[in-house]
């Protein structure tokens, strides 16, 4: 067990070391969401009337942006590891799937922590949300968990792609999750069979929890949804670990 923890630490250290030097990747991960959120602000300013409650939309939209960018970047990085042969070399050197997935998750969690924080600061600033510290901390926590779950989804998808190009067919599924999550339209208005599919997207749980937080409820008031998000994450991480193949 001690050796496993040590090796997870080694993988985390190596990924962080790479991130430290990959300015382009870190830049895209941190700056792109901020730019997109700024453009959402521009669009809302043009469309909405002063009485329109934009926070109901912008916070879940920001969550979706985190979800999408984190998913796609993680998937591509992991596929690159496979095509370069370094993943196979890790296996032959003695690292196992639990160590590899955990190492990556921990390293990217550092990035997700900064990413979620910057996004929340920008949201609060440009949309003048006026939330209290408790609300902001709770929203931050939910976005942070979502970023980690999105990474795990990226890892899972990368296990089924032989090259970077094969990641792209999965993008429509992520876009579909916006419709299924209730971010655009309350899911109660959708047919029942579509509502049943909502449980398959992490954005559904995130949106449900965020909507409660926006109206002033506590983080644990809708605890089943929060547990749902955590369970979803756990299932995805486990599946990503079990399906991490050494070779085709």
């Amino acid at each position, binding site marked *: 067990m001690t050796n496993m923890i040590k090796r997870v630490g080694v993988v985390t250290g190596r990924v962080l070391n790479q991130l430290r030097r990959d300015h382009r990747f870190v830049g895209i991960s941190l700056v792109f969401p901020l730019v997109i959120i700024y453009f959402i602000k521009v669009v809302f300013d043009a469309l909405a009337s002063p009485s329109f409650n934009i926070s109901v939309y912008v916070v879940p939209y920001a969550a979706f942006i985190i979800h999408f960018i984190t998913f796609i970047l993680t998937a591509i990085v992991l596929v690159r590891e496979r095509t370069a042969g370094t993943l196979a*070399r*890790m296996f032959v050197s003695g690292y196992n799937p639990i160590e590899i997935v955990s190492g990556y998750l921990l390293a990217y969690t550092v990035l997700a922590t900064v990413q979620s924080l910057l996004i929340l600061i920008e949201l609060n600033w440009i949309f003048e949300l006026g939330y209290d510290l408790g609300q902001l901390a709770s929203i931050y926590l939910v976005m942070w968990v979502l970023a980690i779950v999105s990474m795990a989804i990226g890892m899972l998808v990368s296990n089924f792609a032989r090259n970077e190009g094969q990641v792209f067919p999965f993008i429509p599924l992520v876009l579909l999750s916006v419709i299924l999550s209730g971010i655009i339209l309350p899911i109660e208005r959708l047919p029942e069979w579509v509502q049943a599919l909502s449980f398959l997207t992490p954005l559904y749980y995130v949106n449900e929890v965020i909507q409660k937080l926006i109206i002033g409820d506590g983080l644990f008031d809708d605890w089943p949804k929060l547990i749902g998000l955590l369970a979803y994450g756990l299932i995805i991480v486990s599946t990503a670990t079990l399906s991490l193949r050494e070779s085709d």
Partner: protein
Amino acid sequence: MKQTTAVHIQKLDKNFGEVKALKSVSLKIETGQIFGLLGANGAGKTTLIRLLIGSTKPSSGHLTVSGFDPTKGKRAIRKLIGYMPQSPALYEDLTPRENIHFFCQAHRIENISQRVDDVIAFVGLSERAHDPVYKFSGGMKQRVSLACALVHQPKMLLLDEPTSGIDPKLREAFWEHFRELTSKGVTIIVSTHQMNEAMYCDRLAILHQGVLLANDTPRQLLWNNRSRIKIWRGEQVTEKDLINYPEQLPGELQSYGLDSSVSRIEIEEDTLETVVLRMINEQEAGYLKEAKDDQYD
């Protein structure tokens, strides 16, 4: 030193869908040998290496590496082996030192830093140890990749075309080091399609389209094939083809009694390339004949 079997392969098949990558391959590799896998691209060399390291499972047949079945004893085997894949398989943002250190840390070994420094010095990259790998040429990346495979001092090295893209001087140094390692009991399995390199091996397995065509020492492979003897008596030249000339030559020369009129004797040996190409052609001709016979049956 008593020789033991490092690798034992019996009737090994590997299929990728409809493609038969290996067809009933059987061979033994003794400990402390440099064993070459020789063949063109698509011969099955890389597949065989991947089966030996447990990266892929055989479709049928049996194999053991140091007594372990790679599909069941993967963990045990991986402590014993060093693997150098065909592509460099390195983290390009990192330095050679960081790459080697990372792959080394999966093994429980002491004094890692010293070991990493030593192996970097061996591959001649001490001065570039702190430069990122993406700045390196193909040959330099191969050197880093070899260092990653060597650093934990494995009992068996599996090298997939290790010297492709490196200069002749360094290639010579690599082979000298391989020889040094085998003298310490390390078994080296090396795939190559370069004939001049194959001559460095203790034994060679020639593969073509997944079929093992031959398994012998390079010298014996040459001797088992045709050599041409030319004998000059004044202006008159006699030519004759011999198989296994070291054994046939004395008898052939007896009739001459080596009289003073024999002014010159030349033996033209087939090159390994010619031998291999002939084997491939014969195998392909055999397949064609089989296919034709099947058609008329």
